[in-house]
């Protein structure tokens, strides 16, 4: 199947409609762990971004953040504070000093549980920051299927523009790709116009081959983004896993013409890590995948480190976290 629905020239790629499950393609996916680890190990060492470039890249990283709070003790007050930070992620004087005060830099989205969609929607009104809700029995995804569909619909109705679903890991672990495909197709349908991010929970899929195959099945089923983790697994976003997933995105685009986004989540807490991830996206997929339309960081504490690095860039002195407003 060779449908070239979009090219790198078109600013807004056409949304992935999905395709029939192609099991031969899924089963042909290979992932050589050692080779992938070797490549992943050289991504941070082959690329170094310094000075103004580093400041610009870190600002770009901020615009890719899905600023997240997913805790049992979340309250409306906590969510409002998070949203305020999403609207104004960096101190105004620093943005002035960097010459980007007028760019309206915000995070890409705020990511919350269904219960706080309404709170977030109000807090983010007019900011351009999307409201993102985790769904389908996040994080384990083992709720009854009709409930999971209902949860998506309710979240969309409540104003979530982006839905992060979790797949049923059992389908991937047992190789029941048909079941995974059917599940994600149903989620996509329930999303309607809301964007669908499929969380693979890669830390629980055991092998990179499973990660590659699950990535492909989710894209075939109509995912807009594929995402690594809930942040609740013991192993979350890693560079080897990311390499497998972005290569799957590239392959899917080469064969179908459709463009899928990527979201690593969990464990990304330092500015330096974001530079490696952005370099990975740029080198493996291209510059469009360094922008929020096609790339997100799922993170809660990352922003704080980026702010400190930006202040260091402006003042030449190492910064402290208390100098930056908290979320």
């Amino acid at each position, binding site marked *: 199947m060779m449908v070239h629905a979009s090219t790198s020239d078109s600013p807004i790629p056409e949304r992935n409609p999905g395709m029939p499950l192609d099991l031969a393609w899924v089963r042909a996916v*290979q*992932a*050589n*762990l*050692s*080779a*992938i*680890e*070797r*490549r992943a190990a*050289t991504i941070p*060492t*082959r*690329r*170094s*971004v*310094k*000075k*103004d*470039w580093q*400041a*610009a*890249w870190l*600002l*770009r990283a901020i615009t890719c953040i899905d600023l997240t709070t997913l805790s049992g003790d979340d309250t409306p007050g906590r969510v409002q504070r998070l949203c305020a930070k999403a609207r104004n992620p960096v101190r105004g004087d620093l943005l002035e*000093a*960097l*010459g*980007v005060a007028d*760019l309206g830099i915000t995070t890409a989205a705020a990511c919350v549980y269904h219960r706080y969609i309404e709170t977030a929607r109000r807090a983010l009104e007019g900011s351009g920051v999307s409201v993102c809700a985790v769904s389908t029995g996040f994080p384990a995804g083992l709720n009854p299927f009709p409930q999971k569909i209902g949860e998506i619909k309710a979240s969309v109705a409540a104003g979530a523009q982006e839905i992060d679903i979790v797949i049923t890991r059992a389908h991937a672990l047992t190789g029941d790709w048909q079941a995974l495909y059917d599940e994600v197709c149903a989620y996509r349908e329930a999303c309607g116009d809301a964007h669908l991010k499929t969380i693979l929970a890669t830390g629980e899929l055991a*092998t*990179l*081959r499973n990660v590659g195959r699950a990535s492909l099945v989710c894209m075939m089923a109509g995912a807009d983004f594929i995402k690594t983790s809930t942040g609740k697994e013991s192993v979350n976003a890693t560079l080897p896993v990311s*390499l497998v997933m972005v*290569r799957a995105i*590239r*392959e899917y685009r*080469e064969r179908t013409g459709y463009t899928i986004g990527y979201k690593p989540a969990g464990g990304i807490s330092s500015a330096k890590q974001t530079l490696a991830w*952005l370099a990975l996206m*740029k*080198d*493996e997929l291209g*510059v469009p995948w*360094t922008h929020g339309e096609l790339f997100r960081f799922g993170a809660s504490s990352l922003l704080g480190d980026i702010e400190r690095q930006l202040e260091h860039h402006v003042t030449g002195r190492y910064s402290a976290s208390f100098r930056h407003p908290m979320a």
Partner: protein
Amino acid sequence: MTRIREIFETMEYGPAPESPAPVITWLEGHDRTFGHYIGGEWRDPGDGERFPSVNPSNCQEIAQIAQGSAADVDAAVAAARAAFPAWRDLPGHARARYLYAIARQIQKHARFFAVLESHDNGKPIRESRDIDIPLVARHFYHHAGWAQLMKEQLPGQVPVGVVGQVIPWNFPLLMLAWKIAPALAMGNTVVLKPAELTSLTALAFAELCHEVGLPPGVVNIITGDGRTGAALTTHPDVDKVAFTGSTQVGRIIRNATAGSGKKLSLELGGKSPFIVFDDADLDSVVEGVVDAIWFNQGQVCCAGSRILVHEGIAARLITKLKARMETLRQGDPLDKAIDIGAIIDKNQLETISGLVDQGARDGATVWQPSWACPTEGYYYPPTLLTDVTPASTVCQVEIFGPVVTLITFRTPKEAVALANNTRYGLAASVWSENLNLALDVAPKIKAGTVWVNCTNMFDAASGFGGYRESGYGREGGLEGLWEYCKPGWLAEAKARAKAAPPAPAAAPVDESPSDDAHPFAGASRGIDRTPKMYIGGKQARPDAPYSIAIRSPKGEVVGEVGRGNRKDIRNAVEAAHAASWAKKTGHNRAQVLYYIAENLAPRAEEFAGRIQALTGVSRGEAEREVNATLELLFYYAAFADKWDGRVHHTPLRNVTLAMPEPIGVMAIVCPEGPPLLSFVATIAPALAMGNHVIAVPSERWPLMATDLYQVFDTSDLPGGAINIVTGHRDELAKVLAAHDDVDAIWYFGSAEGSAEVERLSTGNMKRTWVSDGLVRDWYVAEQGRGESFFRHATHIKNIWVPYGE
């Protein structure tokens, strides 16, 4: 700050320079002028000549390097000779401490060495920092261990002496480490000459040796061009030469050192295949190609420069490769975000572009990424050549640049055939998710290293070296140590021979009436017997029917043998290639060797009688020889399935299998020792290891060998496993030494014959093992059997198999 806004949109990479300041300070501290390091002192070149060292990334001169004269080489070799006895006699532990100190110092000054290397050589700082220098430190650590363990792990071995080492410009400090670490560990002293284009890290290393208090003269660094190298490699007081570089220069060195008795190891060129099967992880394959041919600008002897890809996936691979090539970054080697640096110099740059141009003229499609190379400095872009065939020049010659060719295959068998369709045999890379397939293919490829699903992996614990015209000897691992030691008895015998050269051995053949003068001298009483050549398991008449009479010590004719000529040799080599012996298991080979003993035993009396007739020894002595031969056959039968490989401890999640493989078709020019014993003592180890042999029996005792073929015939030895050509030893040895389809030659004969064999071996750079006129006592175990025979009858192939799911 408008720049930040722009970058925020474009997400460009910016400059990320590693500062050369500490290196500049060091160079300035030396007034950018260097001498030789000889006997623990810095000396100006004897005749005052110097030449510039240039940074290839900007063509700027960075230092003046001393041109070593013959007198400088003499001084360095004399210093090494003077230091040798004390260094040799140090306990292994003391040598281990020095090597450990060197490793530590390398680590402590790692960044300095990395920056200096990139500044001088043009390789990206990412590689010198993350690959070259860490491997250097690792090599010294690993060999500190071998120094400690030598006495216990290499019993009976002694150092070779003064070693002359010449290294190339592509991995200057790493090649130095590969040469110096094992040499010092085994108790040798060293004179090393770095390549004239990249002398600086070797000179900095000399300073480091000085600082750790290495005794003067143990390491001497002498700089200069090929003239200095020639003076060093041919120096009469150098006991061993180790060279890494082009096959062309390796050939010159082999020729120049022929007959000198110098031990020689050569690590030469390559045109290594990179084989991609249709079930490989193609994205990882693409990164493998990056590591194979765009590592160090492709200036790597083992670079995977020939992609062989399954026809069905070739188009997809090419698409992916081109996309990846677009994202490679080429430029200032000291930039931390650069993948490809500068070519070493203008000559090399012109060689590369000349070969690519020729490829284009020959019909190749040349593809290079859309971005432009830097114009200042010597740069060549990554290049993919498609629409080429095995006949294309670019598929045959070593380009030594960032240029890769791509050819398709249909079946695994064809992949192996294409992989082996080269004069070289250094390395290969095999990509498949099917380990059954990968491990089937790996042993079939004629190369010293095979990387499965990886490429250009190196480690001190694993041997590295070639087959065919890629040279001989190994560097790294236990197998690399053999290049720097020798058996104690041999060292003593050599010393004795040097002190008092023996009178030429009595040659009874020459004393007997000349064959030509008495052509019918062989007509004998009884039924006339006609021993023939033994070729391909059949008795064969000589190509030209001439006979040689074999006489007893009293001058009586015992029998006649055919006088073989070059056509008999040609036939024997062809028969050897057609044989199936190498495919047999060790157990099968053992059975056949036992069976030979079994069939020889009932004929012991007959053979003893023949020995008596030929040599005039007592009955008891003759019986002793037959019994010793039977025992030796048992010995080699026993070892046929016991000369195991190793699994090296390389620091990765992988198994590195060091597998002994038969060399292939071996010529053995047999000694004039005890007739039966010394013949069997040379052919049996070669057969036990799975080689196919062309034996030239000694001129005095050919009847012993021809008697034996009847035993072979009845012992299930497959045709062609052993071939016997009788005749004049040195005449036949010359043909065998020069034969391009013979993989190795052993020569047990005169010093002159040894020299001739070494000289003539350069056609295909076959492995040689010669006696230099020294005589072995075939009854003494350490001389007449054992490890050296196995090592000279096998190659070590290292197969790297990373694993993990």
